[in-house]
């Protein structure tokens, strides 16, 4: 007789498999929380901080190998990353930051202007960050579109571009949307309004970052035709009030199952069958599918919520490290990391360079919106795309010509956080 662990005996017929699965995901989520940090010598080599989106061991290890000096990455949670970038710019050389935080970072002068003349492929960087329009027909989207925060003068003050200097080298970006389990929803999800559809009462989760959660809610309220917002990326107090006053009774009725704070939680919620649909980040879809749970990343007709990250250099960096910082940026834009993150659904600011490192089938699926010619793997080798799958929303150029709103820091940020607190306390 095969050996049975006490756990197996205990669970017996109570669906052992699902139990083990949830446990594994839970533990993985917990482990991600305690991020692993390597210590680098401050005098030589680079320390880079950012989110798990771009701070991935494989990427910094490859950089270390290619560049011949140590690049140490540290993946952090959003709040911690933001505070460290702002308050401890002597603790890192490279900040893999986000354009929507520039309202805070630029006046604080924690980063130095980047000279575009030292960026090898600057001419190849798409117009998404330079003019806001990826294609001439694109709409720029509401909120903190990256092109608004790209251009600076040599002192790091924001200017209306173009200029020789930029705040941050554009590198990786994506657009977020709703992830859903088609079995649980019973139909395709094609609008942000479904997040507030009463049919899904108790089966919806939102992102618990006030600045972003409120935008998803605004997209939903607007989609339902309840209110038209002037600028969802910069709401007035009255608009925030309208939104929160609409959400509070819904929450009291038990409409929301949870508000998630990190990637692992969002995966967990859907894998465990707690939610049918939720606002989600792109790699979560793959992670959920890898658990054997069907999950589709919706392409709502109202458009997507975009975000854009890049590489900034701390104001404290000079001399040899400054040269290394530019080398690292040039290495990033040369495409290897772009190809790496493309397999999680993210886009690179020089698509033609990412193409160099992608197989034809991968490029066709992730960028061109064509059906997968064969099974495709995520960056870590797990097959997540089956032959014949098509990416929702079509090609990169289709998706990015329809950004509804960019992640933003609103003028009424303090008021927003206050009302969001009230929403959660209600």
């Amino acid at each position, binding site marked *: 007789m095969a050996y049975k662990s006490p756990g197996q005996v205990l669970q017996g017929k109570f669906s052992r498999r699902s*139990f083990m699965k949830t446990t594994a995901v839970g533990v993985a989520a917990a482990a991600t929380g305690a991020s692993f940090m390597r210590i680098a010598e401050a005098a030589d080599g680079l320390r880079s901080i950012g989110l798990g989106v771009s701070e991935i061991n494989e990427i910094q290890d490859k950089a270390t190998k290619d560049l011949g000096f140590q690049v140490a990455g540290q993946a952090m949670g959003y709040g911690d990353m933001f505070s460290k970038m*702002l308050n401890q710019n002597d603790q890192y050389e490279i900040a893999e930051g986000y354009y929507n935080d520039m309202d805070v970072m630029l006046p604080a002068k924690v980063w130095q202007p980047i000279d575009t003349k030292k960026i090898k492929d600057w001419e190849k960087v798409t117009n998404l960050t330079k003019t806001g329009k990826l294609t001439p027909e694109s709409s720029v989207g509401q909120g903190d579109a990256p092109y608004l925060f790209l251009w600076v003068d040599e002192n790091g003050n924001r200017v209306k571009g173009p200029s020789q200097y930029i705040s941050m080298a554009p590198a990786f970006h994506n657009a977020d949307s709703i992830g859903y389990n088609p079995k649980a929803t019973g139909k395709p999800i094609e609008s942000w309004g479904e997040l507030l559809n009463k049919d899904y009462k108790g089966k919806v989760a939102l992102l618990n970052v006030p600045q972003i959660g409120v935008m998803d809610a605004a997209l939903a309220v607007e989609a339902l035709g309840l209110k038209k917002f002037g600028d969802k990326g910069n709401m007035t107090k009255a608009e925030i009030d309208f939104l929160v006053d609409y959400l509070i009774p819904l929450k009291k009725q038990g409409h929301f199952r949870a508000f998630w704070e990190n990637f692992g939680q969002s995966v967990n919620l859907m894998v465990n069958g707690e939610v049918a649909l939720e606002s989600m980040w792109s790699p979560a879809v793959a992670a959920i599918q890898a658990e054997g749970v069907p999950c589709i990343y919706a392409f709502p007709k109202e458009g997507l919520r975009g975000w854009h990250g890049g590489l900034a250099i701390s104001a404290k960096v000079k001399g040899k490290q400054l040269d290394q910082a530019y080398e690292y940026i040039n290495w990033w834009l040369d495409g290897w990391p772009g190809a790496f993150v493309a397999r999680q659904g993210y886009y690179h600011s020089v698509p033609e360079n990412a193409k160099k490192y992608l197989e034809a089938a991968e490029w066709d699926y992730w960028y061109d919106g064509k059906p997968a010619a064969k099974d495709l793997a995520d960056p870590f080798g797990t097959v997540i795309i089956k032959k014949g799958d098509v990416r929702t929303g079509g090609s990169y150029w289709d998706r990015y010509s329809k950004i509804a709103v960019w992640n933003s820091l609103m003028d009424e940020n303090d008021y927003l956080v206050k009302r969001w607190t009230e929403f*959660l306390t209600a």
Partner: protein
Amino acid sequence: MTTVETYSKLTHEPPQRGLIGSAPVVRPDEEVKRKYRRDPGFPVPVLIAPATAWLIIFLFLPLISIFIFSFWKSTGHGMVPAFTFDHYREFFATEGFFNPDNANFLTPSVFLRTLWTTFRFTITVMAICLLLAYPLAYFLSMQVEDFKWQLALFLLAMVPFWTSYLIRAVAWLPMLGRHGLINEFLLDIGAIDEPVSFFLYSEFSYTMALVQLYVVLAVGPIFFSLAKIDRNLLEAARDMGATPFQIFREIIFPLSLPGIAIGMIFVFVMLMGEFATAVVVYGGKTSTTGTVILNYYAIANYPFAAVNAFMLMLAMMIGVVVILRLVDIRKEL
């Protein structure tokens, strides 16, 4: 040989049982005295200096700075020295408060309500912790005779502390979820037709997880205060005809009060500062003052985060003082 054993050997008395026996009565036995005469040792100031320095640098100064920062001005990306009560006004005031025409008439501010919610949960969980911890500690100290078993069971009660806090919270998910162990079990035996959702991401799961996380903090001190009670007192009471309930009410309970107070202070202080458990098992559907501090810290509004931190500290201090008022630890010890 342990001290107790040595002592009993020298004085020909049976050794005290239990993890902590009652303090041996020192007799004018010269041999014992010589053996246990204490070296005068270091002078008191030297002994307390390291701790004092540590507390001043890492506790007292930071607390003072939090208080000072709460009056500074927020710039959106940091703060500048100033002396403003704006953040305190923001904390207490509600738009339309005390205006009979306004919907907010007599509604306390969001931040006060959050502090109140935090407090309400804390009190509930404290009460449950006490109800669970006391019988457990009582059993360990009074019913388990053998020292070895006492130690073994006490360590067993501490097992949850051997793993990380987060794991302990996350471990509830596979138990309580819609497809969790409990729901699957109830479905299996036919008690329910479809999964019950209130087990997880609810006040129920939140309270349960908090109790499980913090009950150990109450067990320890109560156990120690119970174990310290001189068994001769209980025997004397029995000899004089006291009923078990009388013994408990007149002797055991009053003597265990310091343990209860210390345990409750631990639990109270930990719970008031709690913010992570709500995210994991309550699905972030409530906010505690801890969350508020974190949210304002995350948007670089440090002065306002400081105001909340200061208010939380004040609430904690009041709570601790109230507990200490109810039980005079110094006297009881």
